[in-house]
């Protein structure tokens, strides 16, 4: 029995179950659901801007609750949106560092691909760059994280995590059949400052730094 593979599997399953706790469903009045991730125990949820095109938003938690959500900010340019739900003690994800993410590093993407709850896919980082041949350019020369993972409708807004289960990106789209694109977490941090302002961010500082 190859013990390294067994150990690796246990580690991967732990990353998945840890990340799964912070994974949410984001629904509007349209059919289908996108994904989102809990950033703060008191109800801050991050998702992709393209996931929330409707008005009546609900966030589905892993414990089965579905809560109405308020939009704190929505940036189509960054393809990020920040939601607020009335809840406490939610399992927030730990933020990682996308700037030191090296090509070849192991990452996992969670979401609800084709409506399958908690669907997980894994791959390696292809690169973190503003200029990728098949990727659409982002506003303001912002970077993408390109990964060899198959993102599907329903993965959008969900977490891309590193080997330790830390958030490194937000699943956004595919570029061609085999390259997944995610918004880097560094961009998320900047976005949080923009939306919440430094004062509020400090109050919720535990998650930022």
């Amino acid at each position, binding site marked *: 029995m*190859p013990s390294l593979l*067994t150990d690796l599997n246990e580690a*991967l*399953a732990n990353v*998945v179950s840890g990340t799964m706790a912070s994974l949410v469903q984001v629904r509007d009045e349209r059919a289908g659901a996108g994904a989102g991730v809990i950033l703060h125990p008191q109800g801050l949820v991050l998702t992709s801007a393209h996931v929330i095109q409707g008005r009546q938003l609900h966030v589905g938690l892993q414990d089965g609750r579905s809560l109405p959500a308020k939009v704190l900010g929505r940036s189509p340019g960054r393809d990020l949106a920040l939601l607020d739900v009335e809840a406490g003690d939610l399992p927030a994800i730990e933020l990682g560092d996308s700037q030191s993410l090296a090509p070849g590093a192991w990452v996992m993407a969670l979401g609800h691909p084709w409506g399958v709850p*908690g669907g*997980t*896919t*894994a791959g390696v980082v292809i690169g973190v760059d503003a200029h990728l041949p098949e990727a659409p350019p982002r506003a303001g020369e912002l970077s993408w994280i390109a990964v060899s993972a198959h993102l599907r409708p329903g993965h959008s807004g969900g977490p891309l995590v590193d080997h330790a289960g830390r958030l490194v990106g937000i699943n956004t789209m595919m570029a061609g059949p085999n390259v997944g694109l995610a918004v880097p977490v560094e961009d998320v941090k900047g976005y949080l400052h923009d939306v919440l302002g430094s004062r509020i961010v400090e109050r919720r500082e535990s998650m930022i730094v």
Partner: protein
Amino acid sequence: MSDVLTQLSENMAAVVQAAEPSIVRIEARRRIPASGVAWKDKGIVIAAHHTVQQEEGIGVFGPGGERWDAELVGRDPSTDLAVLRLKDGELTPAEWAEAESVKVGHLVLAVGRPGRSLQATLGVISAMGDSWRTPMGGRVERYLQTDVVMYPGFSGGALLGVDKRVIGINTSALVRGVSLTLPTSTVARVTADLLEHGRIRRGYLGVSAQPARLPKDHAQLLGQETGLLLASVEPESPAVAGGLMLGDTLLSLDELPLRHLDDLLSALADRAGRKAEITFLRGGEVQSREVTLGERA
């Protein structure tokens, strides 16, 4: 660090190598050959139904390129499984494992033999769930989805766990665009049926039905909100012989609640030719009858 990667690569290659003798190429359609896996019984090969398009002149090719003639034992389009028997030959049976041996996030390897040599791709278990029904009505014991890339001809191949055992048979045809694996338990059940009967026997009642809301009192008493209203009853069917009538609302079959059409389909699945106790609502009264089920052609 590189030691770990070397070890990892060698471990992965060892998993594929262990399964290699049991993975075969199947030529039973034009152009792209497909894959198959040696079952526990001698000379029995599991394949994907959609890749077996001819019933005569089926060829099975082993690891060394040797060719055997094979006959089709039977097929079950509803689960996309087919069972072949080598006319004169034996294969090394694969080691089969239940889906309970893996979790979401675990590494898995999909192997196939669309060409002469074995091919493998790496992925993780994406999602697992309870039993489900395929679009064609087949019952599958566990929902098992992976993110492995299914190359052409990979259907009918094996999904391998890191313990070198086969978790199930891969198919890309059941649900488009999704890599699904039929778990060993489903393969075992369907294969046993096909070996015994040459087909999947499914129970037949001879009705069409639709879900209907139950009156409040009955709903509370029975603990179910809906039953199945009979919209038509075939003449001379098991339903008629058992005394069921148009307008009856079926409530349960052998104490399995019938809330949706799916419930009836799955209750009938394993009961071909057997007697079943059916309770129903007629004229505001709960009645029950013993019905001898037929077999669906």
